[in-house]
């Protein structure tokens, strides 16, 4: 018996209702498994050089030279490494900074800090590379520095906004019950602020994935390499190859972080 369109529709709506009725923990597991499958699929695709080449030849009629002999998969790993290092740096500085300016001791610096991270974002990363040239030369370090500064704003402002949105009554009650400052921060404020903080981190990382293509200009490699090479050699296939890989990577990371958010956000703080 072949399914009619109406049974198809019914099946789809059934699946949707089923998904909505799934307990939160189950939904979270399904999403996590989905992200893992998507990640494996993406890397398998990028890794199969022959398949990528064939598709590009079909689409653009040009044979993409393997860039400096580096396979696309390796470039992707390089790209991820640059993103990971710069984002880790952004988090390591941005989170404590955001927390500090919402504490008693740092409240006076709140405006200065937010002006500084604003500037970090409006200042073009490529200009940071140029300015760092005399200090660091042509090195991946200057790329990481540029990306770190560029990604700071969403993390700091997300952290500040999330923490400031925690009801003062909740904190007053916590103090009144004898919770210490650190305990309030880690067991009350951060869990409650986590959805907003995670949103900031997501924005920062996603922007970072795209911006990290400039790292190619410093010799750090990454997926910027096929794009720059493609521009220089008028090879559209190369440009598309790099750009699509970057986009896919960004989407994958965004999904992963969204899934991570559902794990770290306490149930009562959602919606």
């Amino acid at each position, binding site marked *: 018996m072949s399914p009619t369109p109406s049974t198809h529709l019914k099946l789809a709506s059934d699946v949707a209702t089923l998904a909505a009725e799934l307990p939160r923990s189950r939904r979270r597991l399904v999403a996590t498994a989905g992200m893992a499958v998507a990640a494996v699929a993406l890397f398998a695709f990028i890794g199969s050089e022959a398949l990528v080449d064939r598709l590009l030849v079909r689409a653009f009629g040009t044979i993409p030279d393997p860039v400096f002999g580096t396979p696309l998969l390796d470039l992707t790993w390089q790209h991820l490494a640059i993103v990971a290092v710069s984002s880790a740096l952004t988090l390591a500085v941005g989170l404590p900074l955001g927390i500090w300016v919402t504490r008693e001791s740092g409240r006076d610096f709140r405006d200065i800090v937010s002006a500084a991270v604003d500037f970090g974002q409006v200042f073009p990363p490529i200009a940071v590379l140029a300015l760092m040239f005399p200090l660091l030369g042509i090195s991946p370090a200057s790329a990481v520095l540029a990306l770190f500064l560029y990604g700071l704003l969403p993390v700091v402002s997300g952290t500040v906004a999330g923490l400031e949105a925690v009801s003062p009554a*909740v*904190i*007053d*009650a916590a103090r*009144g*019950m*004898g919770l210490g400052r650190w305990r309030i921060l880690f067991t009350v404020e951060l869990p409650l602020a986590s959805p907003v903080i995670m949103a900031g981190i997501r924005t920062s990382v996603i922007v970072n994935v795209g911006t990290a293509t400039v790292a190619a200009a410093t010799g750090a490699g990454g997926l910027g390499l096929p794009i720059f090479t493609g521009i220089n050699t008028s090879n559209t296939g190369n440009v598309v190859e790099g750009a699509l890989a970057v986009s896919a990577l960004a989407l994958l990371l965004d999904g992963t972080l969204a899934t991570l958010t559902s794990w770290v956000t306490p149930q*009562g703080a959602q919606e």
Partner: protein
Amino acid sequence: MIELQHITKRFGDRDAVDDLSFVVAEGEVAVLIGPSGCGKTTTLRMINRLIEPTSGRILIDGTDATTLKPEELRRHIGYAIQSVGLFPHLTVAENIATVPKLLGWKAGRIAARGTELLELVGLDPDQYGPKYPRQLSGGEAQRVGVARALAADPPVLLMDEPFGAVDPLNRDRLQVEFVKIQRELKKTVVFVTHDVDEAIRLADKIALMRLGHLEQFDSPETLLDHPATKFVHDFVGADAALKRLGRVRVDTVLRTDVPTVRDGGAAILTAAGKRARFVYLTSADDTLEGWLDSRVLERGTPPAEAATRVDWREAAIGPDASLKEALSRMLALGYRSVPVVDDTGHLLGEVSLSDVERTMEAGDAHVADSVDTPEAGE
């Protein structure tokens, strides 16, 4: 016991609290009241050192509060506030478990305590324990807030307008329950409010404050009968006599020898109607069902129709209600007396308008402390 000795708090060049001294005896409820900006909340918050006094000493059960770490001190002082401040990311049970956890209680003891407290504040533990604060109504959240403040069984309780944000009906209910719980637990309570009626209802002692200093610290009766200053007099209002009725419990003037007919058929009703003007009707198990007006009977109305059938939940009041409530019930229903029933509707007796009048005339004699000395007219 809480003892404030010459407490002063200066914010900038303004004295929020100026040389304040009073003692709250063990098991007593002291209500801090006054117009906004009088320093009542500042005073409360100095007791658990959420605000540090500029000078003066606060002794809690004889110990200088400043000798303890603030966190340590606060874990042994219950704290409930108007905005409740329940942790939104924790369930009701987890909220209540906060301080016991800090004190290192075992999980079993924490769970048992949570159940006990939810029952105490009138919430079903199985139903409410797993809920999140955003699933609660305002009144329910306040109840959980009080349960959380009582969690570690602290001897001292600080309450900052805990019923201020709920609707009048719920506030009334919460006040009644507070009195009931306090009678059982006998905590030493400092309670901030701006509602004079609430203060008179709940307080053993009222501290009336103005511009950071104490205008009068006395029992509600003394405050009403002998205001120390014109400000006190104006603040408690012109209806002091009426407010005093709020301090007298119905069971102190309750008359139990009321004519009653149990489970009456028509013949009995007719006979009963000849004995007294009003006769209460009860079911076989003494539950109030209504009353009979013999004048209606005399007009030839059949006894079954002459009887007024009522729901005791609406027409009667409880023995622990105040005479003020009894009076307003009479005025609202248009009767000169009101039946008094227990929790299950069993008729205990009645209170009449003349009982209320006698109480008002007797003045101090009848204004017995409603909690500690229920015997009236000593």
